[in-house]
């Protein structure tokens, strides 16, 4: 194969038909940028969802009057539950220290005794199991549980349930969006390529008359599609990366604290970037461009 000849044919034709080449590059850019944005958003939402799930804590408060034996039995019980990922013991002093940090020195100074109970902070492996695990501590003798007046076992039961269903819904929505935009990208790119080849169908006809084989005619077009797709997709990947970075930075530094924005920023603060998105987009663009050229040429290469 005469790669040099084909490459110079492809580049030459892109230079001559630069308006068409630009249009194709922009098309690829827009469609892959949208696709990339959807993928990045999905990744960040997933990240956010995971971190939200991990934040679901069960707090088990211990009675001040519980005996050492009861306390030991409670810890033994926590250790024995397989659904629990980790737990942390917060002593009365630590609880007070946290309280001081949060509400200030002055309030703490005025307290005659330390009213805060010791507690365990428990994380479960799967947010779906929070309810089931929490119930195991309701009747524990060491736990300060007095139905009707106060709960010794605290966990965000309703919140967890709603959160889980929302996250699932968003996940499905994102898959659908990915599919729709991927399809739109394919259609847009193939239409653009078809247009640009239609404009040059006479050229193809002449090549055939001179005795060029189909592949001889095809190669420059395929290379052109490949280069066009690659350029558009690489610009798109860079653009999405920059937007992602800027958004994450902005959310980190800003003080916005409305309810919705906070959840949003929690999702985005890490500026999560799907592994391999950059090469995936680039390859996708290049392959789409090349395939688009081949498909569009088919009609002119019959016989």
């Amino acid at each position: 194969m005469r790669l040099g000849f084909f490459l110079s044919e492809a580049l030459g034709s892109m230079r001559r038909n630069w308006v068409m080449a630009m249009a194709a590059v922009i098309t690829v850019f827009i469609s892959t940028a949208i696709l990339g944005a959807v993928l990045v958003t999905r990744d960040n939402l997933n990240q956010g969802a995971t971190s939200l799930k991990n934040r679901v804590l069960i707090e088990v408060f211990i009675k001040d009057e519980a005996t050492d034996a009861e306390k030991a039995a409670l810890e033994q019980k926590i250790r024995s539950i397989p659904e629990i990922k980790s737990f942390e013991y917060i002593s009365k002093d630590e609880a007070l220290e946290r309280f001081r940090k949060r509400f200030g020195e002055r309030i703490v100074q005025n307290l005659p005794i330390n009213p805060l109970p010791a507690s365990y902070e428990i994380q479960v492996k799967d947010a779906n199991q929070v309810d089931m695990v929490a119930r195991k501590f309701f009747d524990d003798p060491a736990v300060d549980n007095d139905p009707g007046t106060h709960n010794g076992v605290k966990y965000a039961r309703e919140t967890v349930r709603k959160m889980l269903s929302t996250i699932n819904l968003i996940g499905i929505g994102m898959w659908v969006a990915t599919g729709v935009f991927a399809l739109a990208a394919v259609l847009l790119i193939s239409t653009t390529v078809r247009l640009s080849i239609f404009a040059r169908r006479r050229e193809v006809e002449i090549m055939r008359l001179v005795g060029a084989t189909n592949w001889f005619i095809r190669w420059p077009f395929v290379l052109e599609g490949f280069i066009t797709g690659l350029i558009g997709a690489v610009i798109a990947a860079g653009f999405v990366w920059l937007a992602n970075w800027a958004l994450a930075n902005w959310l980190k530094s800003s003080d916005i604290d409305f309810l919705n924005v906070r959840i949003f920023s929690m999702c985005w603060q890490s500026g999560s970037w799907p592994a391999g998105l950059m090469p995936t987009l680039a390859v996708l663009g290049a392959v789409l461009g090349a395939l688009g050229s081949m498909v569009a040429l088919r009609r002119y290469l019959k016989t």
Partner: protein
Amino acid sequence: MIVFEDVTKVYDPDVVGLQNFTCHIGKGEFVFLVGASGSGKSTLIKLVLKEIVPDSGRILVAGRNLGTLRHSKVPLLRRNIGCVFQDFKLLPNKTVYDNVAYALEVVGEPRRSIRRKVPEILNLVGLTEKTNSYPHEISGGEQQRVSVARAFVNHPPLLLADEPTGNIDPETAVGIMQLLVRINRTGTTVVVATHDRDMVNRMRRRVLQLDAGRLVRDERRGGYDQVADVEAEGVLT
């Protein structure tokens, strides 16, 4: 070189291209195809190139049966046939040099030999000075010479010309025809479809006359019209 055996080609809907056409064109011949528009001249040329396929009958080109020639081999067939068209069919965004070179690139000719052959053939057709011009920068006659150069640069055994002088003024046309004759002298079979009465009458070559897809005359040293008419013309002048 070219054999047509009882070839019929009918286009949709019921337009006759060729009807029971039989003829034999030998190696090294120079043949004129004459006839009114729509008489089947272009159909014949397209059939030889296998751009279209006949409804019935058999066509042999350089000993190859086109009916059994595989699709993938069609480009190989065309490389052995030089083509010149009324509308030149030059690649508009390639220079004169690159247009001629393309025919050589297609057959996989080495770079070095392309660089040797293209100037040679451009010299033959007298276009050395236009080497780096684009088709739209040169005259119709010059464009046609480029197209002749492209058709002949491979030294194909067969050269087809479809109204090669149709878009060119008479004086330039003579030059083109002389080129075709010179090419014919190298042993290449030349088939020229034309309307150019004067040219045919002057050259006295074999003439195939078509009418509504049928061969109505095959004369060894013919004129554009029937013998009687030519003689009558001779008497008048």
